[in-house]
């Protein structure tokens, strides 16, 4: 680290907001320790940090709550962590507009609490809501079970302010719910993992808090039966807000927190469905669900507590004390159960335990694998992950290696092949960050 850069950063931010040395341990990713971690308290300070780092040609790693820090290829150089946690003000919330403008460092839990006080919520429910910041959730395009009905960040983000690699403060979109003026910059920054700009402020569409909401779990003999029930559900008039398919291991992790617990003991599969609306709508839909699941062997319909929601979002990861690797998949909904079943089979044949869960109606699957072998014997882990990816690809889907030891990442690429679109992505990166200051090397196609 150049001392001159550190001095300038301290001068701009104040010494208390520039961490070095042992204070950097929370920011170590893939064994790499950053050169400093800085915490600007204003938009202008974010721009100043990027300008200073840009001049010094030191990479900048935007950092919210660190919940997605492990997602990505290892950086060639750790650079300076740019923490957004101090930028957490609620800028504007007018309930009659059903929109909110907020700084990016606010955590999802803080934001929901502020909105909830006024009868509204942001229909985005990623895991680790108490730590995950809004900016990080947008940059990682994280979502949770309710994406089934309410979509993901791309359906909610209507305006964004970013600081670009040349330290310019740039706004895209706006503050109104419908807007086609100019290119859709909010879409560009969602899921861009901090490689095109640092998100500092966002405007989002909100929803009214529903009068009632309920989660119901049903047990099935196996994933195939549960999948048949999902098909029947999706073809019905019901309007679930979440449709989660869990294998017994993930279901056990979910059930462990419930009074009476132990949902997933034994073989089989668990389908968890959420409904919201007026109390009579929730009631009617729960009864209908039981009725249409019965022919597929669905039984033991059990309401879950509202505390099950966050556990549902993290069921796969929490299935093991420490998972060796976590992989997520985007597939068509019809492929979900087969991928879960075959993927578990492949791992079992090699002696690995796995846990699987899916947002079954939208085709988002995650799997955790645990290996108790020595780190140098990770070849078989990489082998399984490679096979999983091939299974997803065979059905037109894609896989992302969310978390894995470095030795595995070196054998199994974190990101799936974007195809010819990868070249367009590289050109966008070259246009917006020609000096490769922002999170270089972490993303798809060498970006």
């Amino acid at each position: 680290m150049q001392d001159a850069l550190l001095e300038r950063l301290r001068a701009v931010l104040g010494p208390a907001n520039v961490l070095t040395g042992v204070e950097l341990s929370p920011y170590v990713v893939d064994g790499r320790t950053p050169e400093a971690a800085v915490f600007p308290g204003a938009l202008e300070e974010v721009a100043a940090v990027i300008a200073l780092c840009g001049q010094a040609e030191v990479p900048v790693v935007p950092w919210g709550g660190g919940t997605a820090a492990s997602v990505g290829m290892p950086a060639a150089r750790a650079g300076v962590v740019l923490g957004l946690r101090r930028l957490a003000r609620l800028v504007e919330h007018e309930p009659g507009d059903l929109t909110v403008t907020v700084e990016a460092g606010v955590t999802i839990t803080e934001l929901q609490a502020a909105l909830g006080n006024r009868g509204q919520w942001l229909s985005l429910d990623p895991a680790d809501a108490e730590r995950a910041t809004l900016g990080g959730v947008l940059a990682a395009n994280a979502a949770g079970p309710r994406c089934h009905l309410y979509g993901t960040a791309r359906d909610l983000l209507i305006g964004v302010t970013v600081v670009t690699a040349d330290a310019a403060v740039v706004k895209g979109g706006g503050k109104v719910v419908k807007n086609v003026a100019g290119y859709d910059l909010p879409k560009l920054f969602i899921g861009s993992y901090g490689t095109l700009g640092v998100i500092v402020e966002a405007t989002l569409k909100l929803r009214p808090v529903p009068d009632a909401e309920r989660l119901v779990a049903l047990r099935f003999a196996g994933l195939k039966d549960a999948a048949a029930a999902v098909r029947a559900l999706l073809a019905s008039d019901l309007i679930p807000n979440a449709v989660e398919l869990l294998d017994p291991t993930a279901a056990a992790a979910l059930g462990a927190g419930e009074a009476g617990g132990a949902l997933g003991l034994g073989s089989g599969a668990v389908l968890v469905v959420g409904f919201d609306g007026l109390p009579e709508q929730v009631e009617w839909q729960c009864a209908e669900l039981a009725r249409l699941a019965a022919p597929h062997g669905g039984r033991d319909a059990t309401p879950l507590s509202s505390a099950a929601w966050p556990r549902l979002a993290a069921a796969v990861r929490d299935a093991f004390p420490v998972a060796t690797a976590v992989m997520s998949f985007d597939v068509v909904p019809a492929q979900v159960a087969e991928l879960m079943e075959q993927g578990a089979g492949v791992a079992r044949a090699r002696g690995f335990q796995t846990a699987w869960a899916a947002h079954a109606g939208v085709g988002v699957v995650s799997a955790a694998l645990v290996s108790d072998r020595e780190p140098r014997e990770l070849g078989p882990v990489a082998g399984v992950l490679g096979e999983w990816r091939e299974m997803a690809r065979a059905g037109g889907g894609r896989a992302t290696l969310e978390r894995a030891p470095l030795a595995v990442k070196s054998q199994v690429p974190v990101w799936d092949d974007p195809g010819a679109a990868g070249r367009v992505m590289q050109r966008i990166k070259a246009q917006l960050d020609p000096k490769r200051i922002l999170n270089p090397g972490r993303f798809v196609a060498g970006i």
Partner: protein
Amino acid sequence: MATLTSGRKTALRRELEAIVGPGGVLSDPDELLVYESDGLTLFRALADFVVFPTSAEHVAAVVRLAGREGLPFVARGAGTGLSGGCLPAEGGLVISMMRMNRVLEVDYENQLAVVEPGLVNLHLSWAVGLKGYYYAPDPSSQQACTLGGNIANNSGGPHTLKYGVTTNHVLGLEVVMPDGEIVWLGGRTRATPGYDLAGVFVGSEGTFGIATKIVVRILKKPQAVKTVLAVFDQVDHASAAVSAIIARGLVPAAVEMIDQLTIQAVEDAFGCGYPRDAAAALLVELDGLRVGMEAQAERIVQACRDAGAREVRTARDEAERALLWKGRKSAFGAYGRVSPAYMVMDGVIPRTKLPYVLRRVNEIVAAHGLRVGNVFHAGDGNLHPNILYDPRVPGAEARVVEAGAEIMKVCAEVGGSISGEHGIGLEKADFMPFIFSAADLAVMQRLKNAFNPTGLCNPGKVFPTKKSCVEVGPVAYTPHAIEAKGLAQRF
């Protein structure tokens, strides 16, 4: 740019015919006239050729030829756009997508359809309707406009309040890039690796390339629908009712507002059952489960009454509901009863600013000695002031354009946008600085460079220009050729 010599033109025509076949190229000036404008007839420009490809490979070959010749090109659907977005700004090629209009695949289990860009919006809903599905975005021009045009403009419609606009329903696109390469952006799954290029492409107004296949989500039709008409004696009360409905925790499928001038025009033309003496009416639609529908409708009724509605009624049956919607969707045509011409504006404001902005719109239009009818997506805050004028009056059209610019400024001042669904195109390119800084526009320009480095793909659109190459009003309004033949109307 230099005009093509007639020898060059003949040679190019032969080359284009070799790609798309002899029946797929127009170059006769009389035939080209049909393509000189879109639904906004204020702007006109003639292409050198109009070509009709029937495959992505055709499109790619035509685009490569255009690149080799340095000819600008622009894709065109039904031409119902309202911002001059598909005009051949500097001569060159219009690539009509109208012969690529097939539904290629419907996958009900995964609730998606793969279609060609020339498919008419409503025809997709027809294609999947028998099985109980539909395509949600419903622009007022949905009987004529194409999915490809919807992609370019990120089109909305009344029901986008609950269901979102085009971009929320597009999963993937096969695109011919401006250099002729065929690339898939997005796909059939909810997310694909890397940047959301399908999301970035939607709404890029034809400047990032030409979509040749489109993967869209199809939705199950709702179990039940209920339509409420609320009648107000004061526009302010109707405006306030919109936010009141939203603030009461309700998200209707649609909330449309119709003002007195428009009601009277609609009643003269169609007799849809709107009270002629009302200052404004709100058309509120709920959809979803049959269970609880009555209770939700009751909340709407109460919110409207509390806001000062003099009468609130729900459509008793499908026939009455259809009639109310006919009044809403035919409003543009009905203006013919009260004015020889009108120009539709498109701006967006925060919903809570509706009362103020509607007052300002009326003041601005009156100050220019003109009249305005408002019929718009109030629930989204998406205004459509329709400024009525007589094109035979010298200077009238120029006053309309001036009033429109002032209205856009008001939208910008209250934190809104200069377009909710019609796009920037040529019409509003010079208004972009109302809401975007030079730095904002620079990032958009760099994004464009990544897709369209030569600038040949639909030049002159979206970004502010000092001077436009095309003929810009004030020109007397003459009906578009297809309008004159009764094949289309201005929406």
